[in-house]
C-alpha cells in the first residue's frame, strides 16, 4: 500500500500529482481488472481519477465507463451500447441533493409532502430495479448530504416542509431499499460531508463553477470511501489486527511501570481514552476481525498487563499473542503463517514510529496506519476503511470462534499417534452438494476472498453464481465442513463446465478452498463427490487448470495430488491437467462423513 494513499492523506497533493502516482501504481504486479461504471448527477471527472488511484492501490485495475454530465438516469434507464459492452462489475451512482428535483413547499399538506417523497424515491428505485435487471452487478448509491442552507433554521430538521427533514426521510427510504435488496450498497456521503464539514463540502463555488456537488479538496475523501466498498466486495478487506501493547493498548510500560501503574480504566482521563480504544478493538471481533498481539515484552509481563482488572481486552480475546524480543517483522510473518493468513491481511497498530517504519520496510503491503496520539487512534483506524463491511454474514460473527477451535484442534493433534487417527477423532461431517439458494451469497463471497487455495482465481458476483447454478452445462459443488469443535460453514467451491464433442469432458473453471480447513482431507472429499456427480452426467474426463498468481503457489501441484496427469504447461507457468474417470475409481478420503452417509471404511468402526 502506498503511504500517500493511506488515510489521512494529503488531498491537494493527490490531486496535483495524480499522473505520476498513477504511473507508479500501474507498475504494480498482479492487478485485478474490474469494470466500473460511474453514473453521475454532477461532474465526475476528478472523482474518477481519484477513484482510479485508490483502486490501483488496492490491487484493482479499473476500466471505467463515465456517463456524460448528469446523464445518470438516462444511461441507466435506456439502452446504452457503451455501457452494455463494458459489462460493468460495479455501478457507482454519484448523485447528491443537487439531483433532488422538487422539495416541499411551505404550503404543502402532509399528503402532498408524502407524495413528493414517493415521487423522488421512485425516480431512483425504478432506476435501481432496471440496473439490477440489466447488469446483475453490485450497485453503489450515494445517499444525500444535508442541504447547505436551512430556510427554517433549526426547525428545518423536524418540520415536514424543511429540506433537512425531507432529505432525512428520503435517505431512510434508500436504506429500506438497501435492507431489502442484496448487492445494493449505500455510499454514505451524508456522514462523509458531516465528517468533512458540510459548509466546506458543499461550497457552492464548485457547483456553480464546475458543477461539482462537493468541493475539490473533498473529492479524494469521497473516492477513497467508494474504493473501500469496492475493495471489500472483491475480498480485499483486512482480516486481523496485530497490536502493540505498551502505550498502544494501555498507557505506560508494563515491564517498567508495573501493572498497577498502567493507564487503563475509568479512574483517569488517560485510562479512559485507552479503555475506549480497547472497547473499539473488541467490537471488531463480532465483525470477524482477529485480534493479535505483537509486543516487545516478556511474555509474563504482557499477560499481566492483559489481565489488568480494568482492561476491556483479556488474553482470551486474542488468537495469537507474541510477546518476546524478536523483531516485530519476524513475529508478524510467523503469526501470519501460523494462522494461514497473508501478512498483508494484518493491520499493524503501534504507537512507536520506529516500529511502524520497520514493518513498512520489512513486510511491504502491510497497512501501518499513522495513528497519531492515543485520543486519535480510533479516528485514524476507523476512517481507513480496513474492514469496510459490505456484507454481514453469520460466518463473520463466528470467525474468532473458528480460529479458537483451530487452536484447540492443534492441541489435540499433538496427542495422537498418526495424523489420520487425529483426523478421525475430529468426527468431521461434510455436506457437499450442488449450489443451493441459501449459500449463493457466501459462495460469491468465497470466490472473491480466496487467494491461496484457488486454482484459477476466477471471481464471481452473486449474479454469476446464480447463473452458473441454473445452467445445465455446469456442474457445481459447495462443501461445508463441521467437526466436534464447531461448524466451519461453506469452505470449498468447485465449478466445472461440460464440454468436448461428445459432451463427456468437464473443464474446471474454479476450484477453491478456504485455508481454515487445510489438511483436513476436505479437498479429497470434494474430488470424490465431483467424480460421482460427473460420472452420473456421463463425463469421462475431468480437465483441470492451474493459473499461477502471486498468492496461490500452494496449489501448484494440487491436481497431481488428486491423481491428474499434466498435459501442458506454458511459459507463464499455466498448467493443464487431465483425469480419466474409470469405473474403478476409489474414494480418496475416509475421515469425513459426507452427506450423512458414513464412508465405506468408516462404517463399522
Amino acid at each position, binding site marked *: 500500500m502506498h503511504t500517500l494513499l493511506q488515510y489521512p492523506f494529503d488531498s491537494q497533493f493527490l*490531486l*496535483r*500529482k495524480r499522473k505520476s502516482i498513477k504511473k507508479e501504481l500501474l507498475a504494480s504486479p498482479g492487478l485485478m481488472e474490474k469494470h466500473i461504471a460511474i453514473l453521475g448527477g454532477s461532474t465526475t471527472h476528478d472523482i474518477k481519477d481519484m477513484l482510479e488511484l485508490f483502486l490501483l492501490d488496492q490491487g484493482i485495475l479499473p476500466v471505467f465507463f463515465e456517463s456524460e454530465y448528469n446523464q445518470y438516469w438516462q444511461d441507466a434507464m435506456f439502452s446504452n451500447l457503451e455501457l452494455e459492452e463494458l459489462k460493468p462489475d460495479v455501478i457507482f451512482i454519484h448523485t447528491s441533493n443537487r439531483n433532488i428535483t422538487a422539495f416541499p413547499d411551505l404550503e404543502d399538506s402532509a399528503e402532498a409532502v408524502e407524495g413528493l417523497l414517493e415521487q423522488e424515491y421512485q425516480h431512483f428505485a425504478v432506476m435501481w430495479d432496471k440496473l439490477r435487471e440489466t447488469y446483475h452487478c453490485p450497485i453503489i448509491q450515494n445517499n444525500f448530504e444535508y442541504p447547505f442552507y436551512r430556510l427554517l433554521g433549526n426547525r428545518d430538521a423536524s418540520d415536514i416542509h424543511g429540506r433537512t427533514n425531507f432529505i432525512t426521510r428520503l435517505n431512510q427510504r434508500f436504506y429500506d431499499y438497501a435492507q431489502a435488496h442484496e448487492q445494493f450498497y449505500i455510499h454514505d456521503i451524508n456522514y462523509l460531508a458531516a465528517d468533512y464539514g458540510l459548509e466546506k463540502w458543499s461550497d457552492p463555488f464548485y457547483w456553480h463553477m464546475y458543477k461539482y456537488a462537493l468541493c475539490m479538496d473533498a473529492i479524494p475523501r469521497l473516492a477513497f470511501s467508494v474504493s473501500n466498498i469496492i475493495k471489500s466486495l472483491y475480498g480485499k478487506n483486512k482480516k486481523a489486527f496485530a497490536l502493540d501493547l505498551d502505550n498502544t493498548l494501555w498507557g505506560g510500560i508494563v515491564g517498567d511501570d508495573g501493572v498497577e501503574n498502567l493507564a487503563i480504566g475509568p479512574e483517569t482521563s488517560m485510562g479512559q481514552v485507552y479503555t475506549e480504544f480497547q472497547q473499539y478493538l473488541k467490537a471488531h471481533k463480532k465483525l470477524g476481525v482477529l485480534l493479535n498481539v505483537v509486543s516487545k515484552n516478556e511474555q509474563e509481563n504482557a499477560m499481566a498487563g492483559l489481565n489488568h482488572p480494568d482492561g476491556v481486552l483479556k488474553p482470551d480475546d486474542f488468537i495469537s499473542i507474541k510477546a518476546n524480543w524478536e523483531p516485530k517483522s519476524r513475529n508478524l510473518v510467523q503469526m501470519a503463517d501460523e494462522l494461514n493468513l497473508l501478512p498483508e491481511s494484518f493491520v499493524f497498530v503501534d504507537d512507536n514510529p520506529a516500529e511502524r517504519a520497520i514493518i513498512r520496510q520489512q513486510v511491504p503491503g502491510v497497512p501501518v496506519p499513522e495513528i497519531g496520539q492515543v485520543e486519535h487512534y480510533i479516528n485514524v483506524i476507523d476512517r481507513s476503511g480496513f474492514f469496510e463491511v459490505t456484507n454481514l454474514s453469520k460466518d463473520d460473527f463466528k470467525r474468532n470462534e473458528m480460529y479458537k477451535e483451530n487452536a484447540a484442534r492443534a492441541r489435540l493433534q499433538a496427542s495422537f499417534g498418526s495424523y489420520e487417527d487425529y483426523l478421525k477423532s475430529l468426527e468431521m461431517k461434510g455436506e457437499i452438494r450442488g449450489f443451493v439458494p441459501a449459500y449463493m451469497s457466501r459462495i460469491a463471497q468465497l470466490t472473491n476472498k480466496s487467494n491461496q487455495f484457488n486454482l484459477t482465481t476466477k471471481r464471481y458476483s452473486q449474479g454469476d453464481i446464480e447463473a452458473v447454478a441454473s445452467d445445465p452445462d455446469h456442474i457445481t459443488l459447495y462443501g461445508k465442513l463441521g467437526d466436534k469443535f464447531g461448524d466451519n460453514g461453506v469452505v470449498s467451491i468447485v465449478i466445472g463446465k461440460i464440454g468436448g464433442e461428445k459432451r463427456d469432458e468437464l473443464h474446471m473453471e474454479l476450484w477453491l478452498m478456504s485455508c481454515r480447513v487445510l489438511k483436513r482431507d476436505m479437498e479429497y472429499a470434494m474430488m470424490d463427490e465431483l467424480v460421482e456427480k460427473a460420472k452420473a452426467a456421463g463425463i469421462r474426463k475431468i480437465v483441470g487448470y492451474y493459473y499461477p498468481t502471486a498468492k496461490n503457489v500452494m496449489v501448484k501441484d494440487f491436481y497431481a495430488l488428486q491423481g491428474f496427469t499434466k498435459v501442458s504447461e506454458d511459459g507463464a507457468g499455466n498448467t493443464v491437467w487431465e483425469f480419466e474417470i474409470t469405473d474403478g475409481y476409489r474414494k480418496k478420503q475416509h475421515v469425513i462423513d459426507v452427506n450423512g452417509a458414513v464412508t465405506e471404511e468408516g462404517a463399522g468402526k
Partner: protein
Amino acid sequence: MTREEVYERLNKVFQEVFDDDSITVNDDTTSDDIEDWDSFEHINLVVAVEEEFSFKIPMGKVVTMKNVGEMVDIIMETGK
C-alpha cells in the same frame, strides 16, 4: 513578491498538473498552448494555484481570466 518569483512557482504548478517538466508559461500563454489543458485540467490547475499561493480566486475572476498574465495579476493582488 515579484512577477518573476510568481512565475517561478507557477511554472512548477503547471509542470506538476500537466506532468510535463518542459512546460514554461508567460503572460500570453492560454489553454490553446498546452495540449492537455481542457476544462477538467483547468479545474485542477486553479485548485493547485490556489493551494500554492494560499488564497481563493473568487468565481467572478475565475470565469474572466483570459491568459496566464491575468492569472498572475490576480495572484499578485491577493496571493501569498
